[in-house]
């Protein structure tokens, strides 16, 4: 093994900043897109539902790497937009995560019982008030475990953005491996980094889940319900 490779490990670690930009940018954009889609899919009329289904169907159906190439070299240039690899990657991850997150939120919204909605209406709440004050506060709590899973998946999907040359963990790992001619250590190291980030992130979301968990809402008195 070439000992020189050890000098470059901090360089790989710095890639976490880019990885986080991709993951949290993608998650945030996915949330902004996914939640309204879920609401539309549950409460919208036929036209709205059909339109949203096409969106979800497209972004869940096309491989991430194809989406990245499509938007970076196809869609954005065709629209006359010159976006950096990082921006393009965040947008694509967000558009795609929005499709997945919409299904997490849809399931959560649908699991809020009909009785809750009927009770809200019975005290005179409008449909909008019912969604905002009764359904979403419950649904979002229910969605946290599913959302945690989405973080774990998105974190590892972000590695594919190396194909556009975003300076995230995997891109840097490849540079180090190729330039030092040492392959095993850098990739094992990158793998461990992803494991740690996954573990830390899911742990963090579980703390949030516990903090906002309400007895009986889901899982009763159980720890992670």
């Amino acid at each position: 093994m070439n000992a020189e490779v050890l000098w470059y490990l901090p360089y790989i670690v710095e890639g976490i900043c880019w990885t986080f930009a991709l993951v949290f940018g993608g998650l945030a954009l996915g949330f902004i897109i996914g939640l309204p889609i879920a609401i539309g899919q549950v409460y919208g009329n036929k036209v709205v539902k059909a339109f949203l289904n096409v969106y979800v169907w497209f972004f869940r159906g096309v491989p991430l790497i194809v989406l990245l190439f499509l938007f970076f070299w196809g869609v954005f240039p065709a629209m006359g937009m010159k976006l950096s690899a990082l921006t393009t990657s965040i947008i694509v991850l967000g558009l795609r995560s929005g499709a997945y997150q919409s299904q997490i939120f849809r399931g959560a919204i649908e699991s809020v019982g009909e009785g809750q909605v009927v009770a809200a209406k019975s005290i005179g709440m409008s449909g909008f008030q019912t969604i905002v004050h009764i359904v979403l506060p419950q649904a979002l709590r229910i969605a946290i475990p599913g959302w945690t899973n989405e973080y774990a998946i998105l974190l590892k999907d972000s590695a594919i953005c190396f194909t556009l040359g975003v300076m995230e963990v995997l891109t840097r790992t490849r540079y180090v491996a190729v330039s030092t001619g040492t392959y095993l250590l850098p990739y094992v190291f990158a793998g461990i980094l992803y494991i740690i980030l996954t573990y830390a992130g899911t742990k963090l979301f579980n703390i949030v889940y516990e903090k906002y968990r309400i007895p009986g809402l889901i899982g009763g008195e159980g720890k992670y319900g």
Partner: protein
Amino acid sequence: MDNDIVLKAENLHKSYGKVKVLKGVSLEIRRGETKVIMGPSGAGKSTLLRCLNLLTKPDKGRVWLENVELTNPKVNINKVRAKIGFVFQEFNLFHHLTALENVMIGLTKVKKLPKKEALRKARETLLTVHITEDLWDKYPAQLSGGQKQRVAIARALAMDPVVMLYDEPTSALDPQLVGEVLQVIKELARKGVTSLIVTHEVDFALEIADEIMFMNDGKIVEKGPPGEVIFNPKHEVTRKFFEKISKPYGVGKYGVLERISPSII
């Protein structure tokens, strides 16, 4: 419309697919009255109650609250519903809110009361249904069935409704918890809260109802003073129903009722 009549329904019809649940039901309630609807499962009692605040939309027929016609599509139904208290068999308390917040949310979000005033009103109403301060910050899952139902009554009552509709309010409760809920409903009725109650509790109906309406197969078969409808019904179907529910094990003429309150019989 007679000024004293606060709730009126005329010729309500409702079908689910081919099943006709309501086949032309009319009723009216005057201010301060307590009316009880009884009848076998599937008679359409719950559907009728839900049609009265349009939680279920009747296929045909009209409903008025005071002088507003709910079934008029131009009427803002949310505003009218805020004036009709509804108590569900399954309580339907908001899971994510404490007992106090459950009562407050209608006051702050629907009635737009300032928080301080809503808080005062919610506390006062909870005390009316005997929910003491130690329970105010509990979530629904931490309350007993009887406590949940009383909080649900408070949630409806705090809105100062014109009429309270109770849909089998004790059917989902353990037997030892039924009494505390019936007691609260009775107290409210005595205070002059206009009430329409669907229930299977014969003794309770005998005690508080100004009128019992007996429903069967989507229609009100007969109505009248409770003693008359229960003990001296005009129709065979009514007689059979009360005979069955008053002596489920076939003991004595009126079963349990005979032993508990022989004076009534």
